[in-house]
């Protein structure tokens, strides 16, 4: 009894340190490596020219931010991803919903879309540049194509796998077609939809880099190319770090925005 009591008390009110310790565990490896590298360069074990130490990357970031250049590039890249994501999600959702709902449309459209999906999307670049020019439209289109397929597949699969028994409940309550979609199908596919959006967003970030590497005068991808051509590895790593931060942030925003609608989920990953 005397042994069990303190253990139970600890379980009820975890110490603040313990509460934050678990998420912090993931930082040990990257932060440890960064510090080790910084020390190695400071001690003269390496000149850090090709692999710049964290302090030099930070200095580059600060410098870019001070001139307002960083903000401009970030803004351009983010707006490209946003536009491409919006178009890709709209088209992917529509196509996925229609093909998931109707077997006829699925037989009609799905083989073509699957064939298009198997084309490496970068292969479209020359064609898009011919069709749409070298400015924004071709880049946004490329990103939209990248976003389209995971969203399309996710939505189609989700609609097709909605539990027939739940749909029958809708029929018993004599829901109309649109009511059935709004009150049964949409909520039922929402968890899978959020996952599809997140993988679509991930691909959007991948494709924006491809688009910007292949010819751009601004954007984070341009910073990469510029850093390569002018031999500034710190700038390349700085751009990569910014990509990672923004990519992770947008993904977090998406899943956080969706979380209130998914509180009902009864799943393995939701346990404490």
């Amino acid at each position, binding site marked *: 009894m005397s042994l069990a009591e303190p253990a139970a008390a600890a379980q009820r009110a975890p110490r603040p340190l313990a509460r934050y310790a678990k998420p912090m565990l993931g930082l040990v490896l990257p932060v440890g490596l960064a510090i080790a590298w910084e020390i190695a360069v400071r001690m003269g074990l390496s000149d850090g020219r090709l692999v710049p130490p964290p302090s030099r990357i930070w200095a580059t970031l600060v410098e870019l931010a001070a001139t307002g250049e960083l903000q401009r590039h970030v803004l351009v890249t983010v707006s490209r991803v946003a536009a491409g994501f919006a178009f890709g999600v709209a088209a992917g959702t529509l196509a996925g919903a229609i093909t998931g709902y109707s077997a006829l449309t699925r037989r009609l459209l799905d083989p073509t879309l699957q064939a298009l999906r198997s084309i490496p999307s970068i292969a479209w670049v020359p064609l898009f540049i011919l069709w749409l020019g070298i400015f924004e439209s071709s880049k946004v289109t490329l990103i939209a194509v990248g976003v389209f397929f995971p969203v399309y597949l996710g939505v189609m699969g989700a609609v097709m796998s909605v539990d027939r028994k739940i749909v029958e*409940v809708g029929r018993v309550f*004599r829901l109309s077609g649109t009511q059935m979609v709004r009150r049964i199908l949409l909520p039922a596919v929402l968890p899978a939809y959020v996952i599809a959006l997140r993988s679509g967003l991930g691909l959007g970030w991948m494709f924006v880099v491809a688009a910007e590497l292949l010819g751009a005068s601004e954007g984070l991808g341009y910073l990469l190319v510029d850093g390569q051509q002018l031999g500034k590895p710190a700038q390349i790593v700085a751009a990569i770090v910014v990509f990672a931060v923004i990519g992770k942030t947008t993904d977090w925003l998406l899943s956080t925005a969706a979380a209130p609608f998914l509180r009902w989920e009864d799943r393995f990953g939701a346990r404490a």
Partner: protein
Amino acid sequence: MTLAISHVGKTYANFVRAIDGITLDVAPGEVVAVVGGSGCGKSTLLRVVSGLDNPTQGNVALDGDAIRSPHEKIGIVFQEPRLLPWLTVADNVGFGLADRPKAERAERVARQLDRVGLTDKANVWPRELSGGQAQRVALARALVMRPEVLLLDEPFSALDAFTRVDLQDHLLDLWADTKPTLVIVTHDVDEAIVLADRVLVMRPAPGRIFAEIEIALERPRDRQSAAYDFAKRRVMAALDRSLERKAITDDGETTSEHGAQMWW
């Protein structure tokens, strides 16, 4: 509100004749139990009556109104609760009342939840309910619509014995409120006798009504009484006989291979 089932047959697309020539009139407020071995078409019959499936022969009518699709006066409770996991318990119960004013909906939901004893669960997600609680919510969801006919498809078969007996009594209690017509499909003979005014025994391949047994016992029924036992024996005997044809076929198969081949 007489439920009239006349000469109903259902053949599925794969040519399986699930039920055939079923004729049955159920009086308003009557409780009818349908029992039979598995695969005898009990559930098919219930789905046809609910309007979820259409018969290939004959028709079902509620007060002369042919049932070809789900009807507002016919409710159904399935073997599984089939609650919508994204709605709270209260919203699940009020699912069919979406077109009613908010105040009326809230009031009816609260009253029905009170009747099934789950007022304290109104705002939890279905995942937090036990099996028995979930099935009570499913009952409440059907009853809140004030159906004239309530169909129950093996509603308590997935529950443990104690919960099942509990819910059978509870169902009778709820039934007494508005006395809807109940058609309950079950493979539990005790359940049929506790609940029903009339027990229909079905025989398989294709499903037909084999016997009809009146249960003229006062409610609440004493599960230990001699009269209850007698009724149970009558139903059991009819069930045995309903499966007889299959027994003979099995016999034929073992004694004469050639004959069995001919039969198949």
